[in-house]
């Protein structure tokens, strides 16, 4: 029989300290019941020193004080019931239904912390997912089982881009393969959550979406569990039920801020900008849950969204993310201000997995070269633009003038596309060739003679 405790020594932010506790385990889930209202909050043991225990409470600790609550150790880890019935449902950040539906009943329970996938058990992801967005498909190709974050900034259309990907991307090879979407909202505004809900409706996938929502005005500590609940559901559907899962998660920045707040309540030594030294490992324990398994159907493709504080890509949140994820799609404010949608800044964008998922048999044999050439030429455009700022466009050399024209056309025609416009990869590649034709052939040093012969200045 588990003991109940009536005494709270100290409440510091989301943490409560209690003493004289016996027989609890590290990571044990705690129910904290407010005497009077009977409301139950959940928490978890995060430090034990002899008989002193620190509990991280996932809901608001306001009002908790010595004498007004009963603390009950449940003897359980943080487990969630898993079932196919998760689909079409909405939960809060600790996995409780908030859609007025019934509780999920299942004999299968999973610890939300997951466990590391054995690298021997993984399969290296190689299947191209067409998103219908030229910049992504051509230059930062999404691969099934990849973790590819969107690095955005406040006010940039990352939600629209994610919604467009959800709407247009086909995850399975054929219609017989099952797919579902797991959506985790961490510290988001009600409007944002509504936007996504509507876009799932528009895409006719609502009954295949599992939603975990922690609103901006919900407790911060719950932000720590929201992504874990979502990824646990994703793992169950992908690896037990063999479905192709797309996880969309926003906003990782809110998650990291919650992590920082809890760390500072624990009085830990901070590393950069006050974020805890273990943030890299902590983020990895989320991102690395994406992937595919050998000899087994099912996959988790992971699209986390984060807003870079001050649009700074070197800030610890995007920085540590980029060190873990398999590339990044970066949105640029200058493109956005020039009304280019989606404003994908291609130079810092990268898909580390595209190399094996493109080319003959996957997309088209010229894909790698076209991508390389577009990167190289567009990077030259930046240099020429800098120069033209100084000496004026009229005084540029004839070749540099061509770069200016190429740059403008590339942004207006290739990057820019409608929210409802889906281009297949062949259309995107052909468009790439058409734009490269604005440059003299001598400038195109990444293209092979065979592909030039076949595609350059050709009616495609």
């Amino acid at each position, binding site marked *: 029989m588990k003991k109940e405790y009536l005494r709270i020594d100290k409440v510091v932010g989301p943490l409560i300290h209690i003493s004289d506790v016996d027989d609890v385990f590290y990571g044990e889930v705690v129910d904290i019941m407010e005497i009077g209202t009977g409301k139950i909050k959940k928490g978890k043991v995060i430090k034990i020193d002899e008989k002193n225990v620190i509990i991280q409470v996932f809901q608001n600790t306001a009002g908790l004080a010595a004498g007004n609550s009963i603390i009950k150790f449940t003897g359980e880890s943080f487990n969630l019931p898993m079932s196919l019935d998760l689909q079409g449902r909405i939960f809060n950040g600790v996995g409780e239904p908030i859609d007025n539906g019934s509780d999920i009943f299942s004999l299968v329970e999973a610890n939300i912390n997951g466990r590391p996938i054995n*690298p021997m058990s993984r399969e290296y992801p190689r299947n191209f997912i067409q998103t219908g967005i030229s910049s992504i498909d051509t230059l930062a190709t999404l691969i099934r089982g990849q973790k590819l974050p969107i690095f955005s900034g406040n006010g940039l259309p990352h939600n629209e881009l994610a919604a467009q990907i959800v709407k247009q991307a086909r995850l399975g090879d054929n219609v017989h393969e099952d797919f579902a979407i797991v959506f985790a909202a961490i510290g988001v505004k009600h409007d944002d959550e509504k936007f996504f809900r509507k876009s799932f409706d528009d895409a006719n996938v609502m009954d295949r979406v599992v939603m975990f929502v922690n609103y901006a005005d919900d407790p911060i500590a719950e932000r720590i569990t929201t992504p874990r609940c979502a990824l646990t559901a994703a793992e169950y559907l992908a690896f037990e039920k063999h479905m192709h899962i797309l996880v969309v998660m926003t906003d990782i920045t809110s998650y990291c801020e919650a992590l920082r707040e809890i760390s500072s309540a624990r009085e830990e030594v901070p590393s950069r900008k006050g974020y805890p030294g273990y943030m890299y490992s902590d983020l990895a324990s989320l991102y690395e849950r994406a992937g595919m398994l050998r000899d087994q159907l099912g996959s988790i493709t992971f699209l986390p969204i984060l807003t870079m504080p001050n649009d700074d890509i070197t800030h610890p949140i995007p920085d540590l993310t980029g060190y873990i994820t398999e590339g990044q799609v970066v949105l640029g404010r200058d493109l956005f201000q020039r009304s280019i949608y989606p404003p994908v800044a291609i130079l810092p964008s990268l898909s580390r997995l595209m190399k094996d998922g493109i080319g003959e048999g996957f997309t088209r044999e010229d894909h790698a070269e076209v991508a390389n050439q577009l990167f190289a030429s567009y990077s030259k455009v930046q240099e020429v633009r800098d120069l033209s700022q100084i000496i004026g466009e009229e005084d540029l050399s004839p070749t540099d003038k061509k770069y200016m024209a190429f740059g403008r056309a590339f942004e207006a025609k290739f990057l820019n596309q409608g929210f409802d416009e889906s281009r297949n990869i062949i259309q995107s590649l052909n468009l790439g060739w058409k734009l490269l034709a604005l440059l003299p052939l001598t400038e195109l040093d990444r293209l092979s003679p065979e592909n030039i012969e076949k595609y350059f200045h050709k009616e495609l």
Partner: protein
Amino acid sequence: MALIEAKKISGIISAINGPVIKGKNMTTFKMREMVTVGDKQLIGEVIILEGDIGTIQVYEETEGLKIGEPINPTGKPLSLNLGPGMLKNMFDGIQRPLEKIQQLSPIFIPEGIGLLSIDDQKLWPAVLSVKAGDILLAGSIFGTVAETEVIQNRLLVPPNVSGTVIEVVPDGSYTIDDVLVKISDGKNQVHELKMAHEWPVRTPRPNAYRKETLVPLITGQRVIDIFFPIAKGGTAAIPGGFGTGKTMTQHQLAKWSDADIIVYIGCGERGNEMTEVIEDFPKLIDPRSGKSIMERTVLIANTSNMPVAAREASIYTGITIAEYYRDMGYAVAMMADSTSRWAEALREISGRLEEMSAEEGYPAYLPSRIAEFYERAGSVETLGGEEGSITIIGAVSPAGGDFSEPVTENTKRFVNVFLALDKSLAYARHYPAINWLESYSGYIKILSDWYEDNVAADCIPLRNKILELMYEENKLQEMVMLVGEDVLPDDQRWVLEIAKLVKVGYLQQNAYNKDDTYVPLEKQYAMLKAIEYLYDRGREGLKLGIPTSQLKDLDIFGQFIKMKYTIPNDDLSGIERLKDEIDQYFEVLFKKYEN
């Protein structure tokens, strides 16, 4: 046996804080002793002892542990079982085989699987090379086992044992635990020699003496072999922000460098990158052995989601395995991707211990740990009289891509080659994104004789000349950004043209192209020599007053840019033909201007 059992006194868990726990009743434990923690018997290591209180870092997830559960001693420090069966395999940070773990648990890595190590069931064909009466020195070789198709495991007398052979088994098939040889030391004590022996990871394996390193590690990568060579037995760091090419470079080195043995540590990086190695390496053929490169490779994986304390250990596990093969007389190259994750693991443990931190939360002993690690590289005469070496190539992942952070700064102090990866080069898809202005190799001087004897007398001078050209180009570019290229005099524009050729046609090397991924030194030299030839002929033209626009024949430049693809690695005659074309073109041109 019974005596040891009787002496075993268990500690009791008294505090739990993530991967760090404390125990009471631990007076009989030793510092750095390996222990099992809790009812699940998680593996841990004693890192602090104060009175009867011990602090332990635990190599597995600690969720579920309780106060009062036992801590049991193993009587030995964190050690590896060194023997055949490591090559072609992947281990976690404390040498547990991931394939065996997978058999126990198909998808995820569970905790409490205990101490697993190399396969102790497998029979290996042993050939013994000693007979009764022979004197065996510590660290000498007493037989061989064909560990893989390519590598002979030379059976080593442990570094702390020696004596006269009193018994030898006949050649035949044995497991790593079978006694093959018995020796008697001076004190009439008998030692049993097996294929495998244990060695503590934190103690460098001894050697007879250090030697100077005079031979380069040939990597097949132009920017490294020609511009910033790494000596066998040397040290190199590859720092760079995310996406700049650290892992690709490390993979390229693991695939193609001419070391006998590769030890590759995926330290706190992506799971898929290790999977990629497991999937790809067996398919790649080593140009020297004609066999798969996996035959000579040991993999250590502590991916970023695996327990952080084992990340700290993985580096030592890797270097100890490297030393083991070095002691057989092999040239070992070890890649650690990324040493920053190891440093961060140190920081995390240090933080949990509430130690005083120096810079950015790192403990004050960070520099000495980095130094100790790189000091385990080197060329040596082994105890057994062989020549062996360990080359260490460590990736560094600076926070924010800023090289002035503590790990990069301190690594720079202790390595001799610095291959600085550059974000803007990577953005422009100039790969490998090794910045030629910031990078350096401290081995140029000591290796220049080797290059002179084995490549060409002018190889290093040529390298210096081209590097100077690149420095000049850099200065000129600053000017171009102010006034535009058209304003520069012709000789400077020629420098810009040639420098661009060096960048696109030479420094850029496509790891995904089947020919360009590995280039023999001869071709590396010949290509650069051809570029120099073009440069020099052009300068003759400049003297005749020929403008750069005329000197730059688009066809010739086009061929130069493509020569890495069009000229086969094993037939360099195309480069001579290219030079002929240059001559023909310039002769006609020069005639026009001479008149």
